[in-house]
């Protein structure tokens, strides 16, 4: 292939990625402005809080407890290679709170909530319900996007906090029941080792991941193509984008909080 053609293709790809990034940024800023400005839709916010927060609890809890348990087993087995089995409580705590809690909750929210938001809004778009909202003097960003993004901003940090605790309890259960750790000493080591910065970083990550998950669902839904295929593409694209952005944001935030 002609090197110039290759360069042109690369240029187009970069331009396309930058343009998408710009559109998502503007969409996010628009959503933020609608969250701040009246009218507000408390009923829609309540439904979003229920769907994103309360109804995600089972999947978050199950993910966290199994991950915490597996983490304890891995650290115990790995630590045994250099006589460091005793660090299980500390590593489970730091691993869950700093990384696994927020990332796994973020990814579960992307799978459960982003897909659901994208499919719902995309279906509303292809069935002209979004146009109907406009003709009924209701701004779709205010009615559909703002409550979902605000609800994710509020509930996902809570879910991360709960996931962290359940994950640590999963590790605790395995360590105490199967690995012979003393229950009180395990908890004491966990509490002593965790710092405020660990917990704050976990909750901040949760808030950022929640916003990413909700914004991606709304963005892809609002920009869906026509028909069932359009809804399918919007749903798939929203989950892919949310998952990648969550992992990228996790890397950046970890650097911000813990770079030495």
């Amino acid at each position, binding site marked *: 292939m002609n090197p110039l053609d290759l360069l042109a293709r690369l240029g187009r790809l970069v331009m396309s990625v930058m343009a998408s990034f710009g559109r998502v940024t503007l969409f996010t800023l628009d959503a933020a402005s609608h969250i701040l400005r009246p*009218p507000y*839709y408390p009923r829609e916010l309540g*439904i979003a809080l229920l769907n994103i927060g309360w109804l995600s609890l089972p999947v978050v809890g199950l993910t966290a407890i199994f991950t915490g348990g597996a983490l304890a087993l891995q650290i115990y087995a790995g630590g045994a290679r250099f006589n460091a089995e005793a660090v299980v409580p500390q590593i489970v705590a730091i691993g869950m709170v700093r990384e696994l809690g927020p990332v796994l909750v973020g990814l579960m929210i992307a799978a459960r909530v982003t897909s659901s938001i994208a499919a719902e809004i995309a*279906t*509303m778009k292809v*069935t*002209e*319900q979004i*146009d*109907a909202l*406009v*003709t*009924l*003097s*209701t701004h779709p960003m205010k009615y559909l996007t703002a409550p979902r993004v605000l609800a994710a901003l509020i509930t996902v940090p809570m879910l991360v906090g709960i996931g962290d605790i359940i994950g640590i309890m999963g590790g605790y259960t395995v360590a105490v029941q199967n690995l012979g750790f003393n229950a009180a000493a395990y908890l004491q080591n966990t509490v002593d080792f965790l710092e405020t910065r660990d917990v704050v970083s976990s909750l901040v990550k949760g808030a950022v991941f929640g916003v990413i998950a909700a914004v991606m669902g709304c963005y892809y839904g609002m920009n869906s193509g026509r028909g069932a295929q359009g809804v399918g593409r919007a749903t798939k694209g929203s989950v892919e984008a949310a998952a990648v952005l969550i992992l990228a944001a996790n890397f950046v935030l970890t650097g911000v909080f813990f770079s030495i």
Partner: protein
Amino acid sequence: MIRMENVHKAFGDNRVLQGMTLEVPRGTSTVIIGGSGTGKSVALKCVLGLIKPDSGKIYVDGKDAADTGDRDAFLARFGMLFQGGALFDSLPVWQNVAFRLLRGSLKRPVDEARAIAIEKLRRVGLKPDVADRLPAELSGGMQKRVGLARAIAAEPEIIFFDEPTTGLDPIMAGVINELIREIVTEMGATAMTITHDMTSVRAIADNVAMLHGGVIQWTGPVAQMDDSGDPYLDQFIHGRAEGPIEAVR
């Protein structure tokens, strides 16, 4: 009351409206006919601001529709029946009908909004027990009626009907046509309907406009439609495959 002047709209290479000019007088029912994909829905959506025209002007009561100032107040003058109903799946029927009355500048107390919704449902021939059902639990004809009830709930001055009889059996289509005619007459509203159902045209229209090739090919009173002498309109209303309108086989 509504005037479209030289409106152009293209989607990529597809030039849908190519200088559409149309006038809809106050208190009349104008039906826009034309084949599928000729831009009838696009024209309606341009008036409402759902689609921005590439060029041309649209006036409502002499004021530029693109520069309305208070958008909420502008849209409050309109009601629209969408082709597929466009009812909100997550809301019960009465909240769909009373949607505008539960929020925004026309907000009323919940009890009053519900009472108005039930009255509008009754007006379109639906019983009060439908009010608490979800749209998915209704037949296509009932959904169309609920959409009609929602369009008239706030007693708008201007009502748009997008393919009101598409997908309905002939009897239900007749019922909807009669309802539209009655409601427009009793409310004194200005109506704009798009359809390719000629039975609907004859039942609803005061005036007919035929959209073809992105422009209004013919316009006039419904009574003159059969003797227009326009070959395009003639081919369309008689459903002939031969004529100036190319039929894709």
